[in-house]
């Protein structure tokens, strides 16, 4: 029987992931332990197992279009159980980073960027201030959070004033000097 050589469709994409997360990704034997352990796999369009295979095959567009990395709860069940010791959670992180640097825009990226910008400017999170700011541009999100916010308010668990944090100039340095946008490994 002839041996079939399969060339990954986008080998740069595959290599990128391997460099970031390790070459163990190539040894995935598709056992499905990761998918079976994943708490959110039923909401994913491609299971973790499928994503690893798609990475091996260089299916960059399909992988970056999938909702899988965004539904990863970073619970690390997959990573702890993978018999090939593939760092699957880190694969998901790498895909998120790659999506960001590829210019992909979605709700999660939007909120992540907003959250981090808030940290850069204020040091710590004041929930009221964070959500008020986010809610101004995304009123429907604000409405979703309102019941919980009110429950906390009633229990005296929602500090209204922002805490002032000193010496945070190096935080700005950190954000500026370090490439935030995923980029190469």
């Amino acid at each position, binding site marked *: 029987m002839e041996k079939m050589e399969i060339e990954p469709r986008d080998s740069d994409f595959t290599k990128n992931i391997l460099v970031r997360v390790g070459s163990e990704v190539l040894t995935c034997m598709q056992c499905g332990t990761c998918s079976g352990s994943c*708490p*959110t796999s039923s*909401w994913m369009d491609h299971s973790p197992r499928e994503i690893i295979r798609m990475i091996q095959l260089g299916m960059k567009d399909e992988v970056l279009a999938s909702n899988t990395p*965004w*539904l*990863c*709860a*970073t*619970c*690390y*069940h997959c*990573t*702890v159980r993978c018999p090939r010791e593939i760092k699957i*959670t880190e694969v*998901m*992180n790498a895909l*998120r*980073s790659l*999506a*960001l640097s590829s210019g992909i825009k979605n*709700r*999660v*990226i939007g*909120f*992540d960027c907003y*959250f*981090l910008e808030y*940290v850069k400017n204020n*040091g*710590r*999170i*004041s*929930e009221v201030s964070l959500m008020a700011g986010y809610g101004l541009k995304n009123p429907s999100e604000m409405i*979703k959070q309102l*019941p*919980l916010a009110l*429950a*906390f308010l009633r*229990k*005296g*668990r*929602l*500090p209204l004033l922002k805490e002032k*944090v000193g*010496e*945070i*100039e*190096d*935080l700005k*340095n*950190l*954000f*500026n*000097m*370090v*490439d*935030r*946008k*995923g*980029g190469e490994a």
Partner: protein
Amino acid sequence: MRYAYYPGCFLHGSSLDYEISVQAICRVLGIELLEIKNWTCCGATHTATITNELAAGLSARNLARRDGLEVTTPCNICYYNLKRANHLFRDPALKSKVNDALATKYDGNGKVKHLLEVIYSDYGLDALKEKVKKPLKGLKAAAYYGCLLTRPGDGFDSPEYPVSLDKVLMAIGVETVDYYYKTKCCGGPIFFQEDEAALSLSRELLIKAKEGGGDCIVTACPLCHVQLDARQPKIEEKYGEHLGIPVLYFTQILGLSLGIPPHQLGISKLIVRPEKVLSFLRS
């Protein structure tokens, strides 16, 4: 016993009841917590999208200010992020790049311990038993570890079958129940992306803990706590069922057993009424 203390944003925000109970029990146990001066956010659940350098830097900035002490935090997510910085700092290029940006350089040697670990490993169960004034006899608790307390590993307890929280609870006279969901994800990190998933995961957990015989759930993470306690009414409403399971921070249960009055532990700030748990104080 002295530690550099990293409370994290939640404990200074909507989980200030957790903070109240942390301070109360550490005072009684003689654990000195020195809050890291001008600490900043570790990035919480938003470190996945950014580069390793920035993720490490957010935590390294805080670890650099530990004044030579071991660092402790009561939040699973902060614990994970801080430990992850240590792991990432093993790369000299990353370490150098991050330190270039920081005002106080980080040597990469800060020891990071979850507060549960401090009590379990450093303070010790025997010493804890001596301080118990009200053994909460008859109370059955489902110890809930969550994900990042014991995973990805190299931690103080087993990623698959941890026992530390159970043993701490048993030391104060509480019976813990066995159930499958001790380390299953509560869904907290994805509530923004897919709220239905987050509610569904927490609901399963609440049901399994109840089925396992738990009168209450005990947790060691503010995000898990919000999912299980503050969002329990929403879960009940969405699925049309009554759950009514009190969810307490481990520091609150500990505090009760140490004889600290409930109002000094933030008990009145819980969303799901905890009367069921408090009734065991009288027994």
